[in-house]
């Protein structure tokens, strides 16, 4: 049956994407290596750290077979610094983490959730695309792996509020042509803001459609005219 959903991912689907993020795990039990559909999982040997997708880390964690090492940006110190940056800069989101070197032209470029922005070696000073979902899922399933989970929770809530109010303020600059800069926005924020942001842009476009059509015709005439000029030269 065709999917009866409007365009865009739902929050559970965003969480599903986020569960593909790699996180660092400290196993408490041995496990042989496994050939999975998304690539092979190396053997687990306690206490050697291993990177694995979040869904698997959560499965092991719930069975007390492993501990999860939260990424460095999910520490109170880092979150407080990022929150300060968010509050100081009214009009933009804090910059996303640095990207790995650009792939060559024929290689497949990777993007979130496949960028290792949630492992123990991730950058400490930037929120990756799935920051909110990842933080909440880890706090829910692995709060005991945090040093100060309550503080982390509080800072995440603060960040969410500051950033949502930025997203709402962005509405003032929306135009029929779109083009709004959203660099640094998070997955869950896109999901929440999509219906409203795209709805406003689409409706502005419909209101201005006839003006735009006139302009398109004029542009086309002008190019045609200049072509004629070239001919006469």
């Amino acid at each position, binding site marked *: 049956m065709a999917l009866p959903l409007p*365009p865009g991912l739902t929050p559970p689907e965003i969480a599903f994407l986020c569960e*593909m993020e790699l996180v660092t795990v400290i196993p408490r039990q041995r496990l042989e290596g496994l050939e999975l559909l998304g690539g092979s999982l190396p053997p687990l040997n306690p206490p050697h750290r291993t990177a694995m997708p979040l869904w698997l880390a959560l499965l092991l964690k719930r069975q007390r077979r492993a501990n999860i090492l939260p990424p460095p940006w999910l520490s109170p110190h880092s979150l407080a610094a990022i929150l300060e940056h968010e509050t100081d800069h009214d009009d933009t989101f804090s910059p996303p983490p640095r990207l790995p070197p650009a*792939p060559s032209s024929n290689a497949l470029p990777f993007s979130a959730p496949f960028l290792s922005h949630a492992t123990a070696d991730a950058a400490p000073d930037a929120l990756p695309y799935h920051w909110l979902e990842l933080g909440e899922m880890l706090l829910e399933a692995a709060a005991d792996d945090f040093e100060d989970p309550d503080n982390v929770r509080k800072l995440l809530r603060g960040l969410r509020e500051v950033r949502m109010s930025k997203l709402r303020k962005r509405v003032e600059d929306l135009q029929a042509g779109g*083009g709004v800069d959203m660099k640094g926005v998070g997955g869950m924020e896109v999901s929440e803001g999509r219906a409203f942001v795209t709805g406003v842009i689409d409706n502005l476009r419909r209101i201005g459609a006839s003006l735009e059509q006139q302009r398109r015709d004029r542009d086309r005439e002008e190019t045609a005219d200049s072509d004629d000029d070239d001919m006469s030269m």
Partner: protein
Amino acid sequence: MDIDDLLAEVTADAVPQETRDLQELTRGWVAERVAPELLPWPDALMERVLERVRKQIELVEDQTGNMDPKTNFKLIIIQTELERFKFLVRSFLRARMKKVDDPMLLSPSEYQYLTAHQALLSNHYSSSFLSQFPAALQRLDDTTGGISMVDKPDEDAAIFCRALRDVGEIFVEGTDQRFEMKRGDIRVVRWSAVRTWVLSGDVELI
């Protein structure tokens, strides 16, 4: 080509095909869920993914019944991942089905679905009410009065997208909107203005 390019090429090659396929399938699923129109059917990718899924199901069937707790736990992991893949593939197919209309972009089974579904619908309409209308009102593709009965995707719908490579200047036809898109940038923009780059793999929908 500088050292960064060389390094990137080495790392890209080091990523196994399975992981690259997962990235591609995930991206394709998100794109199909977001884009206002149907995108091309990723033939080779789907063949590889479905073949692996089939093999994994066989493996699970082989090993079920094995009472060894170690094997049992491995099976739980394998099955969990298998269900995730099945969800991805299913949701991808269902998102496409909603938009199935252009035979050029369809897989053979989607084409079969399109023709069978349309035949059922038009039979149903004509037997339940259309046949009782005057002949002039029986058409399903009328365009009188300047309004077409055929729904078309809104190609200018606004979408969220992210640049995977530097794509240079994007220009929105009919407006003053011009902007530069660099790798990692996220913009809300008309689908028609970035479609070419999404199809070439330089921009992704989010």
